[in-house]
């Protein structure tokens, strides 16, 4: 401790001096390098290969714009585009037409059993739509469908089938009912968040219920309604399973099923398929951009499952009729198809009809242990989903951290790349990964790694956005305090940031695990018999005619999914960091689920 000399250090030396440790630490370089490399491999490379392939000829490999020209010249290739647009518009109309009134009933009125309706709608939400389609094939196939059989038993055997699920109408119906939960969730959360005071204010000014609705409620939820229309449109446009199950058998092509067709040709027209992805990408990119304009940064809604207490509109005599109407959606999207799948899966041989002797758990035993193919698929599904969700959450969280704390110049570019997959339909992702990783030097075809990577990439935007929203709630000074006490960036991240993110990280993990395990379209071009997963097995087995096994697999997948959804909340709460020492202390706030909208 000496008295400081007043003259400054040699100014010539000072002008060129650098603080001693100003070099970029090695660890930092390694982490950023790894993140950049992963983002490149998971997003940029597949996307780049799709672009590159789209301008090359399948036969000669030469550079050409011919693929694009062909799309717009051949009626064969234009028809699926129109069919897809039709399916998309109809899906969006149904989703909004049913979802918005349903959301209003549940969030704003004294409808009986509101919570139950909410839970059932959430169940429809997590039901993979191609499994719903399978259930409805049992119900409404023109000849064998139960509802048609019921109809014939009433109207006489010579009567034609009442319903035909193998039709555009059928596909629209299925896409529609499984997209309703999206619009329902978005609009009901908008209604839940909307201050009741606004409505009350209008009411005290003498405005009646209808007036209030027209002048206050509707304008406030309009952005959510428009955004959910756009999202439902994208769903209808990009769904693969439902049209593959319901439209391909009758020869009605849509863009997604047409893409699959290119791969089944001999020789496969893979470069044409790449070009064929572009109209789809263009439309989804445009729609997401519009949605962003409407919603701003608020692109995710919280699902807390609880509706807010407060004044509700009395339905009066319409209460029970309204309840009946609200029950229609769960009836067609959950009860009927689940019942059909369950019954068929529990019969030893479906052709022998329903009887006590015919009931058995044989097909479950068969799927789980008896058949190596199904057994492998179940193990693969669980394993790949676990690995992919873990990779996805880790990468998404680190990218979110880098972006949120602006750790490097151009950090937001990382975020932009991590968000790109949101506009890429699953089937296009599949095309991209096939293009990028079935060639040297990175030939991963047939390896689990290919599927894990593709799954992780597809749901990276969810993990990234979720990580970002948690980090926004953690003040940077909590981390800076650790830095000023001597902890480096890595140590601070691990011992301060990660524990503070706590249960949020686990809920993020479930948030990607659940869609991954039920994902079909991303996997379709990437699987081999050894890397089959449950969804692709169901998809490939549906033509085999072994409906009992398909149903048993479907029910198993549903059970796994629903069990995970049910477990996610409590597990997340358990792992949320303890913040009080006393047992009686304040409970930590329950972690909310966040779903991409």
């Amino acid at each position, binding site marked *: 401790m*000496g008295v400081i000399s007043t003259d400054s*250090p040699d100014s010539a030396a000072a002008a060129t001096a*650098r603080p001693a440790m100003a070099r970029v630490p090695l660890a930092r370089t390694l982490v950023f390098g790894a993140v950049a490399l992963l983002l490149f491999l998971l997003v940029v490379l597949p996307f780049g290969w799709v672009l590159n392939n789209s301008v090359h000829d399948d036969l000669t490999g030469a550079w050409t714009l011919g693929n694009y020209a062909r799309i717009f010249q051949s009626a064969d290739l234009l028809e699926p585009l129109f069919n897809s647009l039709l399916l998309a518009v109809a899906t969006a109309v149904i989703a909004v037409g049913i979802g918005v009134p349903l959301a209003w009933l549940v969030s704003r009125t004294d409808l009986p059993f509101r919570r139950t309706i909410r839970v059932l709608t959430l169940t429809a939400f997590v039901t993979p739509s191609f499994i719903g389609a399978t259930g409805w094939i049992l119900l409404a196939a023109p000849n064998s469908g139960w509802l048609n059989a019921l109809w014939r038993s009433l109207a006489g055997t010579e009567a034609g089938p009442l319903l035909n699920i193998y039709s555009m109408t059928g596909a629209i119906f299925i896409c529609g009912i499984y997209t309703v939960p999206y619009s329902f969730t978005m609009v009901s959360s908008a209604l839940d968040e909307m201050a009741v005071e606004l409505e009350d204010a209008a009411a005290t000014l003498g405005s009646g219920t209808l007036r209030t609705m027209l002048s206050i409620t509707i304008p406030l939820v309009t952005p959510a309604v428009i955004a959910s229309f756009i999202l439902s449109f994208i769903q209808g446009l990009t769904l693969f399973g439902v049209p593959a199950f319901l439209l391909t058998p009758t020869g009605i092509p849509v863009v997604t099923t047409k893409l699959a067709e290119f791969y089944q040709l001999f020789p496969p027209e893979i470069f044409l398929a790449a070009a064929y992805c572009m109209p789809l990408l263009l439309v989804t990119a445009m729609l997401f951009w519009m949605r962003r304009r409407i919603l701003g940064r608020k692109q995710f809604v919280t699902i807390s499952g609880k509706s807010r207490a407060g004044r509700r509109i009395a339905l009066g005599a319409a209460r029970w009729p309204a309840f009946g109407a609200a029950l229609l959606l769960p009836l067609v999207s959950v009860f009927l198809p689940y019942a059909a799948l369950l019954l068929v899966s529990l019969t030893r041989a479906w052709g022998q009809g329903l009887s006590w002797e015919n009931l058995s758990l044989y097909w479950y035993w068969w799927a789980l242990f008896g058949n190596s193919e199904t057994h492998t698929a179940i193990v693969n599904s669980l394993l790949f989903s676990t690995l992919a969700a873990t990779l996805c959450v880790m990468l998404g969280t680190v990218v979110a951290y880098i972006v949120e704390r602006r750790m490097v110049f151009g950090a937001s570019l990382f975020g932009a790349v991590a968000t790109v997959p949101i506009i890429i339909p699953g089937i296009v992702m599949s095309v991209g990964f096939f293009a990028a990783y079935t060639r040297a030097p990175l030939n991963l075809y047939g390896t689990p790694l290919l599927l894990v990577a593709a799954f992780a990439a597809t749901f990276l935007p969810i993990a990234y956005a979720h990580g970002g929203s948690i980090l926004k709630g953690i*003040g940077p000074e909590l981390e*800076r*305090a650790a830095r*000023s*006490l*001597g902890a480096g960036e890595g140590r601070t991240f691990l011992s301060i940031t990660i524990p503070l993110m706590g249960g949020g990280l686990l809920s993020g993990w479930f948030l990607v695990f659940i869609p991954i395990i039920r994902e079909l379209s991303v996997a379709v071009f990437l699987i081999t018999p050894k890397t089959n997963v449950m969804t692709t097995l169901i998809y490939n087995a549906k033509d085999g005619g072994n409906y009992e096994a398909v149903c048993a697999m479907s029910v198993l997948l549903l059970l796994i999914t629903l069990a995970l959804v049910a477990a996610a909340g409590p597990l997340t709460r358990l792992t949320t960091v303890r913040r*009080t020492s006393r047992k009686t202390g304040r409970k930590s706030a329950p972690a909310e689920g966040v779903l991409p909208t």
Partner: protein
Amino acid sequence: MSGIRIKNLRKSFGAYTALHGIDLQVPNGTLLALLGPSGCGKSTTLQLLAGFEAPTEGEIWADDVLLSSARGVLPPEKRGISLVFQNYAVWPHKTVAENVAFGLAIRRLPKAEIAERLDRTLRTVRLEALRDRYPSELSGGQQQRVALARALAVEPRILLLDEPLSNLDAHLREEMRFEIRQVHDLLGLTTVYVTHDQSEALVTADRIAVMKSGHLQQLGSPEDIFERPSNAFVATFIGANNELAGTSEGNGAIRVGGHVLTAPDRSGAAHGGTVSLCVRPSQVRLFGAEETGLPAEGCNVLSGTVQRSAYLGEYRDVLVDLGGGRTLRAFIPPAQSFAPGSVVTALLPIGSCQILGPAA
């Protein structure tokens, strides 16, 4: 422990410049208060000192070690500088003891030494009894002490405090003020203490640096700052002050409206330059207009009308309208009393007046 030397420190956020070339020296072991109105760049200065921001220009030295320059920044964890944040930033997922011991664990000290230093630090801030509590079970003042203990436990060379008392109630603030000074005296740490509360600065600091809009206005002892402010802004910011704007009439004289007043001139302004006459209300004496034989020698004499008068027990706070939109505040003995509207003569002792220039 080391002294701090800040040389021509500039910091810009895009087009906005938060600091315009600050020069500041904090000798080893002193407690410097960084004082200024909201948004003047106090926190920015601390973030630069702690190494969370890089300067646009200029240098920060600790003794003869260069910490920051435009060419690079020694990372925060390598500086030996502890920062206590405006909002404490106590980690909610760690107990009091875990919070305080964190920095020691980082240093991989032996277990026994960690325990010993933890106990000592907790004792210093009187938190022994609360060591196993979580922050959500502590009061604001206790959390503040945890933040302070956490910063002290690592035995930093320099301690930075960013408005550490701003979230506390008046009573606790008073108490903590002395506590911080006590800890400083005990450990002799070079400390920079940010505040916008002038009495906090006067009570705690050895030296005070007054800032305004990214410029350093004055650096000096509390007495310097209060008695010999370098400009009218400092005079008004510290303590109650009258500021009568006018133009310089050459050395020692200022024209205020129709009057020419005299006072020690510390403005350095040329004839005709913009200056102010500053005088503390406690130095102003008031007399009724009818009174004669006033002790006017060595005083500037002004007359005006009483606008309002407030009785504050110890003294009366009287506002006098001087005409021309000028007012003068005077703290007079409570025994004296003037009704609003009465005409008074104000005596401003020349020795208590100063002619000062505007803020830098």
